[in-house]
Structures are given as structure tokens and as C-alpha cells.
């Protein structure tokens, strides 16, 4: 009984080994293999899923227009389910088995930071789609990112508060990586804008009721506004609880909820909420002379036609990452990861959905505050906020 099974097993491993040995190098010789690890499922799926769709959509599009350097782009995507450990395993697989020449992915800060050392060691460029500033500060030679940082979001919010004459604020932050990181960044830059943080509360990413924390904030005297760094369903529940408690001071959300599903989940409670976000969300409302207008309107139309879902900034980050990479590959004229890295760093004047990108050896993001627009939710839709004087 035992011998045949073992024999079959040996045959199978042998065949697998041969298959690996033959497909590996031949594929990379003819095609440009780009890797991606995304959180297409799990708690960050509302970020990862549009990213996944965007990458597939535009890689197909680029290939149908002749690819890059006369070669086809092959996209290898793994789903980490939001788990940094899985992300790390998949990153290793991309490097060691798939032999990718570059990577666009890493949906969350947690998964990105888990994967960064692997791409650093392998000297393969890695364009992350996650928010936190820790990804690019301090600069890692091979790691780049496309979304605005949470520090920029804090600065944008505080600038808006300052313009409205509001300086005493409360904070209610998620305890997940995004919420924590943004919370810390906000504390760091609060002084620059003359902000005083009178209440500083937090909630778990899966909490279903946040009224106790908000009650504490409500009962703190002199609070003029509340800032909620967080992503996922948490901010939607914060917003609902905020209105339930009848808190009347302005509520600021972060760019982490810049997706239609937030308005949908929070319902009428979201009216009047302000948040910093990319131009993409208000593509139709941008003035015609806005340099980003053509890019964002085109991406929005393409994405919405193909997926029949409303566009989100997260898919836009993937769009920016993919095109920064493809442009760099074209400029490098080679599939050598080191040359591609050098070209990514030289990206200048790239107009993406997130803003105008000017990278440098000390800035692996290349965006400034003007890339953020302050939005206000009006009648269940985004609108450009008019700052009161």
C-alpha cells in the first residue's frame, strides 16, 4: 500500500519542481512581472478591493495598448486579508518564487511595514498604497508611497480649524495602526497651528458603541471641534453616536474614510462633517483649469464604467502607484529593479489622482498640502468646503 503512494508523491514533487524551474525564468525573460500584495478581503477590504480592481483594470489597459518596453506586463496579486504576517509571507513569495521586478501594493500601514524589509533586502522597488508617514520617514532606499500622509491630513484639518477660529479640540482616535499613527502625528503638529487638545479618547477598531468616550468629550468644557482619526466602520459609528448624543461642535473625519461607503453607513449623521481628501472625490466639481481635472475625471469614468461601483481614493492610490512605476520602467528602458528604483526617485511633475508628484532622494512621496482638498458632506455627497471667516 505504501510504496505506490510514495511513488506518486515523488512523481508529483518532481513534476512540480520541473514546472517551477521552467516557468520561473522564461516568464520573467519575456514579460515585465509586477507583484502586489493587497488586503482585498478582511477589515481593510474596502481599501484593498478597489486597489485590486484598479490594478487589474489598468494593467489590462496598458497591455492592450502594447505594454511597456514592447513587453507585456504580468501582474501577480496576493490577498493578505489585512494580516501583516500573511503579507510578509506573500512578499517573500513574490521575491523568491515569482521574481517580480517591482511591487505596487501594501494596502495598510501594518502590512506595508511588515513587507518593507523584504523588498529592501532584495533591492526591488516597492510603491506602497498605505497612509502612515513611517513608511517613508526615515527614507528607505527602495520604498515609496502614493497616498498623502496622515501628518498632512492633520495639518490640513488644523489649518481649516485655525481659519475658522477654532483652537480647542477633542480627539477620538481608533486604536488600529492608522488611527494610532494619525493620532500621534496630530499631537506632533498641533502646536504649529496653535491647537490645544483638551480631550484625547480612543476606541477599538471593531467597537460597536462609542457613546461612553464621546460623552466624556461632550462633557469636557470649552471644546470647539472634534477630530476623528480612523478608518473602516469605526468612524461611521463615531459619527452616528456623535449625532445621537447631540454634540453640536464641528466634527472632522480623516482621509481614511474618504469613500462613499462612509456617507452611506453614517447616513444623515454625516451631514456637515468635514474631511481632507484627494481631488478625485470631487472630480466633477473641480474648476476646469485645475491641473488634476483631466486625470481624475478620466480615472473616475474608467473605474466606474468597469466596476459599476463608485470611485474611491484608495483605487486612485493604486492608479498613481502603477503609472509612476510604468513611467519609471519606460524611462529606465530596462527591467532591472535597481534602474527602475532610480527612475522612480526622479519622478517629477507626475499628475496623479492624489496630486502632483515630485519625488527626490529625501522625499519618497512627493506631495504637498495643496494635494488635499477640504471637503464637507452636504446632502449625502461631497462638496468643496467653504472656509468661514
Amino acid at each position, binding site marked *: 500500500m505504501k510504496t505506490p503512494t510514495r511513488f506518486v508523491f515523488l512523481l508529483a514533487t518532481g513534476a512540480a519542481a520541473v514546472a517551477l524551474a521552467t516557468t520561473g525564468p522564461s516568464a520573467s525573460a519575456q514579460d515585465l512581472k509586477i507583484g502586489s500584495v493587497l488586503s482585498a*478581503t478582511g477589515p481593510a477590504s474596502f481599501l484593498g478591493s478597489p486597489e485590486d480592481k484598479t490594478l487589474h483594470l489598468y494593467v489590462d489597459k496598458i497591455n492592450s495598448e502594447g505594454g511597456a518596453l514592447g513587453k507585456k506586463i504580468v501582474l501577480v496579486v496576493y490577498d493578505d486579508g489585512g494580516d501583516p504576517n500573511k503579507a510578509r509571507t506573500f512578499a517573500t513569495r513574490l521575491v523568491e518564487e515569482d521574481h517580480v521586478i517591482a511591487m505596487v501594493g501594501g494596502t495598510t500601514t501594518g502590512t506595508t511595514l511588515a513587507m518593507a524589509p523584504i523588498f529592501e533586502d532584495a533591492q526591488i522597488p516597492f510603491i506602497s498604497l498605505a497612509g502612515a508617514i513611517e513608511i517613508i520617514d526615515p527614507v528607505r532606499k527602495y520604498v515609496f508611497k502614493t497616498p498623502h500622509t496622515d501628518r498632512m491630513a492633520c495639518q490640513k484639518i488644523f489649518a481649516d480649524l485655525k481659519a475658522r477660529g477654532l483652537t480647542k479640540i477633542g480627539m477620538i482616535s481608533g486604536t488600529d495602526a492608522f488611527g494610532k499613527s494619525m493620532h500621534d502625528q496630530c499631537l506632533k503638529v498641533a502646536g504649529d497651528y496653535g491647537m490645544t487638545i483638551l480631550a484625547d479618547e480612543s*476606541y477599538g477598531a471593531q467597537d*460597536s458603541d462609542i*457613546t461612553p*468616550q464621546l460623552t466624556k468629550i461632550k462633557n469636557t468644557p470649552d471644546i470647539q471641534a472634534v477630530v476623528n482619526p480612523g478608518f473602516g*466602520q469605526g468612524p461611521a459609528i463615531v459619527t452616528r453616536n456623535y449625532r445621537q448624543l447631540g454634540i453640536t461642535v464641528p466634527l472632522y473625519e480623516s482621509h481614511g474614510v474618504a469613500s462613499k461607503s462612509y456617507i452611506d453607513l453614517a447616513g444623515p449623521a454625516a451631514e456637515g462633517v468635514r474631511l481632507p481628501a484627494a481631488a478625485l472625490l470631487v472630480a466633477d466639481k473641480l474648476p476646469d483649469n485645475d491641473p488634476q481635472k483631466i486625470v481624475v475625471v478620466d480615472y473616475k469614468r474608467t473605474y466606474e464604467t468597469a466596476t459599476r461601483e463608485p470611485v474611491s481614493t484608495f483605487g486612485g492610490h493604486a492608479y498613481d502607484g502603477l503609472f509612476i512605476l510604468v513611467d519609471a520602467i519606460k524611462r529606465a528602458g530596462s527591467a532591472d529593479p535597481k534602474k527602475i528604483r532610480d527612475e522612480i526617485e526622479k519622478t517629477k511633475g507626475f499628475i496623479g489622482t492624489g496630486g502632483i508628484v515630485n519625488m527626490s532622494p529625501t522625499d519618497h512621496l512627493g506631495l504637498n498640502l495643496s494635494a488635499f482638498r477640504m471637503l464637507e458632506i452636504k446632502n449625502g455627497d461631497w462638496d468643496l468646503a467653504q472656509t468661514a471667516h
Partner: protein
Amino acid sequence: MAEFLQFCASGLTVGAVYALVALGFTIIYNASDVVNFAQGEFVMLGGMVTVTLSAAGVPLPLAAGAAIVAAILVGLALHRLAIEPARGASPVTLIMITIGASIFIRGVAQLVFDKQFHKLPAFSGDTPFHMLGATILPQSFWVLGGAAAIVVLLHAFFEGTIIGKAVLATAANPLAARLVGINTGSIVTLSFALGGAIGAIAGILVTPITLTSYNVGTLLALKGFAAGMLGGIGSPLGAVLGGVALGLLEAFGAGYLSSTYKDGIAFIVILVVLSALPRGLLGRRSVERV
């Protein structure tokens, strides 16, 4: 005072859900000695089926009914396909089977429904009640009332009907129950159906407040299990007490102490209680007769 009331309202609402999950644990545990970690998935199914059907235009009461039936069917299938074939396996094996089943149900739910969060309109509006300075959502009363109704109905069922008494007898001593002519097999089947139904009702009641998605079950199962342990696993009253206590602990912990450590505070209290009363607040004192 207003603050205290607000924390109570929050704690009681969340606690009522924990209590219902813990009740599901208790009923199945009593009848079959299985700690069913797929209990949270019933809550998820209750919410997700209702959301999906009502989005497709089915009236809310009908969608809710269908969700309960769906959860019952899944409960029965879980028993027939996963637990029954492993009859006689050790408790640890059975726990692993239920954890596997919960992962499976979550995976299927992700395909059948989707990966997004969903909301359900509140049954009687979103305008909060104002009580002594605290604001309470009408849906909170639905959750509390629903939980109370389930507890009362279950009590009447266990104490007032032959089948209910048969469940109690099976819980007390399966062998003796079989000897007096109780079909313990169908009692176990019934307990899985009941567990599914209670979980689904909890999911339907709470979704307008907490939102739902395919993966809300995991955390609820953990919290419900902790509540069950706190109250004393095997005691229905203990499950309710444990659930409400856990909800209140979290709310007061977040409100009066520190929101960062609120889960920690709740679990420390549970550890202290369990080290003093290893069988929980109202656990069965098992007596070994020689």
C-alpha cells in the same frame, strides 16, 4: 448622573447582545457539551441575510423571518454535517470543529454576500430619546426588549413544556434522560436550531446600531464566550448576567477610566471573578458521587 445613565444605556445595549450570544453558547453546551464557537456566525447571518433581502426589496419583517430560518438551517447543518459525525470525540476536538465551521461559514458568507459593511434602518426611527440628560436610541430599546423577551420565552419553554423539560433533563444527565425515554439525539438537534435562532435574532436587532459585515461574528463569539464564562457556562441566567456585566464593564471602563484599556479592564475583572469563583457567578456546582 447624565453621564452615568449614558454609560448604562451603552453598556446595557452592548451587554444584551453579548448576553444573547452567551445564551446560544449555553443552550448548545447544555444539550451536547459542545462549546460552539460558530455562535457568532449566527449573529452575522441574522444581520447579513436581513440586510441582503431587504436591499432586494423584501419587507423588513419578512426578511428578518427568513434570516432566522436561514440561521436555524445553518445550525442544523452544522450539527448534522460537522458535530454529529464526530460524536464521542474529545471536547477539544469538538471546539476545533466548531472553529473550523465558523471559518467556513465566514468564507461562504463573503462569497454569497460581499465584503462591505452594511446598515439596516432602525425599526422605529433614529430620533434619540432624552432621559435625564442621556440620549438613548429607540433601537436600544428594541435590543433590550428583544433580549428580555427571548429570556422570558426560553424560561417558559424550559419550565412549562415537556420538550423544554426534556432539554433540561438531557442537560442534567444524558444517560438518565435516555433511560426515561427522551430522544436525546433530537434534543441536541433542537438545541442547535435554538442556538441559531437566538443568534440570528440578536444579529437582526443590533445591526441598525452596530452595522454588520461578513466578519462581525468572530469578536462577538469571543465576547459572548467571555460573558458565558463570567456568568457560569451552562447557566442560562448566568449567561444573561455575564453578558450584561461585560457590556457595563466595557462602558464604565471606557467612560470613567481609560478608553485605551477598556477591553483590558473588562478582562481583568473577569479573571479576578473566575479566580475567586472558578465556575463563574452562577455556574453549576458539579458534585461527584461515589
